[in-house]
């Protein structure tokens, strides 16, 4: 029966406790969902009806009426009668009592054992955990059903014994889930902080760990309850457990099986009631899992492109890439939320252009929009991105796919995750070489080796056979760069290419990028939060803040004499130029999140120069001495505005 294996297999998915704000409300959130409510209502109904069976049942469950056998539902017998003329409804109600009590027993035993073992092993670790893992591995290979049969063969017909045995046999699988969840919580830094504060283990387990594993535990309990009901019915279907004429759902099905050629209807009532009960437990488990994993399935309003009105004429430009007035929106709870507004950006052939800004300023999504790789629901809602005479913002999927790799390529932040773990470095590059150039095997191979050599592997054959996990971060990033070069792109977008690397490795990768740019006459759009990297690498740069490009221009001039208070503040925040131990000139306040941007200047709330004028209306971009521009009304109060 897969119900039980399912609960074990689901372990991987439930093992991680969610980052829900109030996970102790898992039940409450589950009840807020219609499906959860229906499931709980059905189960509650079953429990109440079974408990009140003596009151509710129209007949005694064993009362035979040989004049009315195998009848279909009627007024006297709402669900018909069986081969001995016994009332099916009454038997169902009485049968439910046995089944539910049995299931409760299995759940009680199983969860008690699993919770204790899983919490101890997960929290304390060490030899306790090793012993636990070993034991669980062994126990999981015990075939549950035949072992239950063996128990029944030895002990005789005792369903209680079978259910206790069931609880014990499935406990290891559940304990492993509990251990996984506990381990995940235990590795959270707040547990370390609590230990450092001198809180006793008991307090930490009860107050910090238990509430966070409650979600997965409830899921498992729910799945186990369904599995136990199924097993209970199955065993009594086989004639084990309560002896006829005492009714159980299982033996009702087996009695029905004897007369399927005469009255197939009899299969329906016990099958449906039992199936719905198991389904309800399963649904409850699913809903609980969803809420405790906090997969936000709230329907978000997707963004749609708005037809651009006016300004259709695109000025002929020598730029390779030219973005005009680009606005990007992502799905929000009520309406789409704008994350980039009115962005203008140009990249000339062979030029290295920087896009700099802090977390959430919109720089990464801007880069992705160029390749048509926006996340689901996000869209360029206004403006144009022209590349080679094509507007990438409105281009078809086929056009974009055709451009990717051959005209525009991209490398990403984390080299550890940007390679396919089951494919070797060489195959990664070769696949792209074949895709972009084709040719014989030997030619593809030769070109692959050439590319690997060009990104700094003197002996490419050695690297080509390695899998990603055998490469260091710096090596993996070089392989990723080789992949991006395979189609000889005119523009390479590098999104924080060195952020995940150690500083000494960083320098090597940046040097490589600069060499490649020079040797291949390839333009680079370098995205970084690190001013130091932008300053060394780029000719020109765009500074983004809260969805706006606030300042742009040549790096030398802009960073020496900023013309926007944000650029100025960022430069001053860096500790390098400050006196050690003295206060740094910090920018006060925090970045406003998308969706709560002010009408006027987005930086106004944190700016010492801000006036009412700044807050009243959107601030236009002012052109200073080319190529410098700033989105500030008071640029003349800054050094860059006067220069």
């Amino acid at each position, binding site marked *: 029966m897969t119900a039980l294996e399912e609960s074990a297999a689901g372990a991987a*998915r439930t093992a991680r406790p969610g980052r829900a704000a109030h996970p102790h409300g898992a039940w409450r959130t589950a009840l807020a969902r219609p499906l959860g409510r229906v499931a709980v209502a059905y189960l509650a109904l079953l429990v109440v009806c079974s408990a009140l069976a003596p009151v509710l049942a129209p007949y005694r469950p064993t009362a035979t009426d040989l004049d009315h056998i195998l009848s279909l539902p009627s007024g006297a017998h709402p669900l018909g009668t069986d081969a001995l003329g016994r009332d099916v409804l009454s038997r169902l109600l009485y049968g439910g009592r046995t089944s539910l009590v049995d299931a409760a027993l299995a759940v009680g035993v199983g969860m008690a054992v699993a919770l204790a073992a899983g919490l101890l092993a997960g929290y304390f670790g060490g030899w306790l955990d090793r012993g636990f893992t070993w034991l669980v591995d062994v126990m999981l290979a015990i075939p549950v059903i035949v072992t239950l049969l063996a128990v029944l063969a030895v002990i005789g017909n005792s369903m209680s014994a079978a259910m206790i045995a069931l609880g014990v046999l499935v406990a290891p699988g559940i304990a492993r889930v509990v251990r996984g969840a506990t381990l995940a919580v235990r590795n959270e830094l707040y547990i370390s902080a609590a230990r450092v504060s001198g809180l006793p283990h008991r307090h930490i387990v009860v107050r910090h760990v238990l509430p966070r594993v409650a979600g997965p535990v409830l899921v498992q309990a729910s799945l186990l309850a369904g599995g136990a009901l199924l097993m209970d019915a199955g065993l009594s279907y086989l004639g084990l457990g309560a002896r006829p004429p005492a009714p159980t759902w299982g033996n009702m099905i087996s009695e029905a099986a004897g007369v399927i050629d005469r009255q197939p209807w009899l299969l329906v009532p016990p099958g449906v009631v039992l199936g719905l009960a198991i389904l309800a437990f399963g649904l409850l488990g699913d809903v609980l899992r969803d809420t405790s994993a906090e997969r936000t399935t709230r329907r978000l309003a997707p963004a749609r492109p708005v037809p651009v009105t006016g300004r259709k004429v695109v000025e002929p430009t020598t730029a390779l890439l030219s973005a005009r007035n680009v606005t990007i929106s992502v799905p929000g709870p009520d309406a789409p939320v704008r994350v980039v507004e009115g962005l203008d950006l140009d990249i000339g052939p062979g030029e290295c252009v920087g896009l700099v800004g802090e977390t959430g300023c919109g720089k990464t999504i801007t880069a992705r929009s160029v390749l048509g790789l926006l996340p689901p629901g996000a869209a360029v809602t206004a403006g144009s991105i022209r590349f080679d005479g094509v507007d990438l913002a409105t281009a078809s999927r086929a056009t974009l796919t055709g451009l990717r790799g051959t005209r525009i390529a991209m490398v990403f932040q984390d080299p550890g995750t940007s390679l396919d773990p*089951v494919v070797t470095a060489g195959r990664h590059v070769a696949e792209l070489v074949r895709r972009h150039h084709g040719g014989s095997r030997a030619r593809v191979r030769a070109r692959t080796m050439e590319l690997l050599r060009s990104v700094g592997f003197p002996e490419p054959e050695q690297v080509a056979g390695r899998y990603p996990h055998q490469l260091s971060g710096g090596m993996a990033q070089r392989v990723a760069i080789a992949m991006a070069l395979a189609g000889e792109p005119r523009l390479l977008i590098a999104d924080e290419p060195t952020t995940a690397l150690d500083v000494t490795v960083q320098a090597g990768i940046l040097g490589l990028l600069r060499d490649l740019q020079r040797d291949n006459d390839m333009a680079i759009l370098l995205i970084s939060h690190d001013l130091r990297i932008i300053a060394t690498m780029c000719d020109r740069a765009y500074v983004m803040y809260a969805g706006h490009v606030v300042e742009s221009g040549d790096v030398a001039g802009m960073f020496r004499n900023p013309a926007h208070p944000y650029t100025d503040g960022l430069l001053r925040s860096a500790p390098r130029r400050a006196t050690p131990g003295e206060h740094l000139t910090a920018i006060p306040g925090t970045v406003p999140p998308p969706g709560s941007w002010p009408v006027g200047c987005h930086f106004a709330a944190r700016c010492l120069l801000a006036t009412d004028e700044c807050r009243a209306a959107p601030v236009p971009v002012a052109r200073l001495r080319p190529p410098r521009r700033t989105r500030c009304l008071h640029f003349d109060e800054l050094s860059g505005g006067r220069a």
Partner: protein
Amino acid sequence: MWRFIGRRLLVSALLVFVVSFLTFLLQAVTPGDTARMILGYNYTPEAYHELRARLGLDQPVLVQYVHWLGNALHGDLGTSPISGVSVASEILKRLPVTLSLVVLATAVTALVGVGLGVLGAVRGRGTARLVDVLSLGGYALPNFWLALVLVTVFAVTIPLLPATGYVPLSSGPGRWLAYLILPVTTLVLQGVAVFARHTRDSMRDVLSRDFVTMLRANGIPERSIVFRHALRNAAIPTVTVAGLTFIGLFSGTVFIESVFAMPGLGGLAVQATTSHDLPTIQGVVVVFTVIVVLVNLAVDLAYGWLNPKVRVS
């Protein structure tokens, strides 16, 4: 790798010992008495003592176990006190029935499950919802009930297929298959949706990873991403699911073989349980355990073969 297999086998052997010993132990600590259960209510003290002696129940449990173990190592799992037949030969006779049922069912489940799973991950809503509904059905409906419904429809109402029984492959593949269709369908219905759901979840997981964006950004077409990259990665967790499915369906035969009156291991286990035939049920438990262990080993090997991280070490 060989060390890993060796250790795994060692643990497995130990497990078989433990499980078989537990059944002996259970017998010793329970108040009931197997001889009495077999004899029923009316028996003479002589018959009782004679049966106990014949079953070896008059000796200490440990002695009984060592005796059993010694024989088991030589392939002798004892003799059924009920039928007087050798347990090992009975099991060997029935094993092919159960294996053909389970192997066929697992293969179909895996094929359909992977197909539906990939569709669900790539095509989105419609297929995904179908898989959800199917998987809830497969999860909730007891397989023996489902089997009875199938029998009612396809054997009783429309007499297309035989309702019960089994013929060996040697009497013709057509006939063999005809007898297997309903039981296999039942098992597939039970397992396929869970399989599809796991495949879909792992495909979705892989497709949302960074390296997929990386491949897309550099011009790898979608078809290649799905079949060459995502499927290979998703295959790793799916192998585990396939193993679990096999084990689940294998256990499911206990019920299915009863419904279809098939002369397999599952049916044997049920018979042995109702007649308190301890040597037989012990033999079945041991064989089941060995098969579970072998499947797990196969899964581990496949896992290592698919996952370079494991393979290299």
